[in-house]
C-alpha cells in the first residue's frame, strides 16, 4: 500500500498525503523519506512560535487568504499538546484558522508529546512529505510552550516569534532562549495598549545582544494591521535557520533516536523498574547509557 500512497502524493492526491502523514507522524516510512534527498522544489518553511494564547492560530488563519492572493499554496502543520498521562489530545487550532475550501490550502493537526520541545514527533519527515506534494509554503505552528523551545529552528527556514503587549517587564527580554532563535519578531495584538512600548523594549534588548538585526513588526489579527508587512518580510527574508550544523538539530535528532530505542523491550523493562521505584532516576539513566551503547535491536 505505501507505494501507491507515494504515487498518490506525487499525483497530488490529498488523501494519500493525509495517510502518509499519519504514517510518518508515528515513525513509519521515515527511512524512505530520508532517502528522498532534497526536494525538487523546496518549500518555504515558516515556524510560528510563542506562548499559549498569544494568537498563533488566529494569525496563521489571517495569513492564508493574502498568501493565496499572492498565488502561493500552503500546508499548515498545527501542533497541540498530547497528555503525558493518557496520550489523548484536543487539537483545536484548525477551528481558529477558519480555512475555506481551497485545494491550495492543507491544514493538519498533529499532537506533540509533552517534553518534546513543542513540536510533533518526526516533524521533519512530515514537512518533507508536504514538499514532495509540492506546497509553496509550509507553516508550522508550535505547541506554544514558551521560553526554552528552540527545536523548531532545525526544521524551519524562518522562525517567527509572537509576543504580546504586557508580557513581563523589560528584564523578560534579556532571558536567553527563544528570543535568540527568532528570525522575525511579531508584537501581536498590536491593537491593544502597550504594543509600541513592547516593541521598543524588544528592539532595545536585541540591540544590546548585538549580532544580526531581527525585524520587529507590529501586527493585529483583529484589525489586519501589519499583515501585509509581515508577509512581505516572510517572502523577502533570507532563509537562515534550516541547517544541519545547528546544535539544536543534533539534540533533537538524538532525542528522537532515544525515543525510538525506548521501544526496545530491554528499555521498556528498565523504565518499568524505575517507575516501580526500585531504582532511582540516576541509576536508571546509568543503565540507559549502557543500553544505548549496545547495537540497535
Amino acid at each position, binding site marked *: 500500500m505505501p507505494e501507491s500512497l507515494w504515487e498518490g502524493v506525487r499525483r497530488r492526491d490529498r488523501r494519500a498525503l493525509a495517510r502518509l502523514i499519519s504514517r510518518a507522524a508515528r515513525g513509519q516510512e521515515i527511512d524512505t523519506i530520508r532517502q528522498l534527498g532534497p526536494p525538487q522544489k523546496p518549500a518555504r518553511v515558516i515556524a510560528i512560535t510563542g506562548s499559549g494564547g498569544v494568537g498563533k492560530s488566529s494569525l496563521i488563519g489571517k495569513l492564508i487568504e493574502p498568501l493565496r492572493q499572492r498565488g502561493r499554496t500552503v500546508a499548515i502543520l498545527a501542533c497541540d499538546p498530547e497528555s503525558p498521562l493518557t496520550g489523548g489530545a484536543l487539537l483545536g487550532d484548525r477551528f481558529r484558522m477558519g480555512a475555506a*475550501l481551497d485545494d491550495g490550502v492543507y491544514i493538519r493537526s498533529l499532537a506533540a508529546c509533552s517534553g518534546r520541545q513543542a513540536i510533533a514527533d518526526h516533524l521533519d519527515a512530515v514537512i518533507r512529505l508536504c514538499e514532495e506534494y509540492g506546497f509553496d509554503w509550509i507553516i508550522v505552528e508550535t505547541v506554544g510552550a514558551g521560553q526554552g523551545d528552540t527545536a523548531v529552528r532545525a526544521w524551519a527556514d524562518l522562525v517567527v516569534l509572537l509576543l504580546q503587549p504586557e508580557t513581563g517587564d523589560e528584564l523578560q527580554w534579556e532571558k536567553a532562549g527563544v528570543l535568540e532563535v527568532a528570525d522575525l519578531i511579531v508584537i501581536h495584538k498590536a491593537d491593544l495598549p502597550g504594543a509600541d512600548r513592547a516593541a521598543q523594549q524588544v528592539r532595545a534588548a536585541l540591540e544590546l545582544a548585538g549580532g544580526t538585526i531581527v525585524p520587529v513588526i507590529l501586527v493585529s489579527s483583529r484589525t489586519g494591521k501589519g499583515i501585509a508587512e509581515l508577509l512581505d518580510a516572510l517572502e523577502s527574508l533570507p532563509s537562515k535557520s534550516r541547517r544541519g550544523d545547528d546544535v539544536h538539530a543534533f539534540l533533537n535528532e538524538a532525542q528522537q533516536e532515544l525515543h525510538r530505542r525506548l521501544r526496545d523491550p530491554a528499555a521498556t523493562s528498565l523504565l518499568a523498574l524505575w517507575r516501580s521505584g526500585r531504582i532511582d532516576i540516576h541509576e536508571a539513566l546509568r543503565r540507559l547509557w549502557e543500553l544505548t551503547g549496545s547495537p540497535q535491536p
Partner: protein
Amino acid sequence: MWYAEGMSEEPIRIVLAKVGLDGHDRGIKVVARALRDAGCHVIYAGLWQTVESVVRTVADEDADWLGISILSGAHMTLVPQIMEAMRQAGLDHVGVIVGGIIPEADVPKLLEMGVSRVFGPGTPMQQIVEFVKSRRSAAHA
C-alpha cells in the same frame, strides 16, 4: 504516551463538528473532553461548519471517526448530505456517529443511512468512549 505499556497502540483520531445554524456546543465540548481523556486525538472543528468543510476536515486529518452534534432539528436534512459527501470523497471507511436531540423515530433512519450509532441526551460518556475505542475503521486497522 511513549513510556507506557501498550504504547504501540496508535491513538484514534476523531473529528468533532457541529453543522449548520446550531450554536449549542456545550455537549460536544464535554464529549471532546471525555474522548481526549480516554486517549483519543480529538480534532475539534467547532461550530457552524458546512457539510463540505466537515468532509474536507475528515479527509485532511486522516480521521478514523466523524462525530456530528445536532441540536437544531435539522438532522434529517444534514446527515444524509454528510453521508453522501463522505461517500463521494471516498471516505466510506470513516465511521460516523451522531449526537444531540434526535427523536427516537429518526434513529433507525439515520442508522440505515450508514450512521454507526446515535447517542441521545443522558448517554453516559463511558458508552461513547467505549464505542469509539472498540472499533477502529477497517482501512486504518
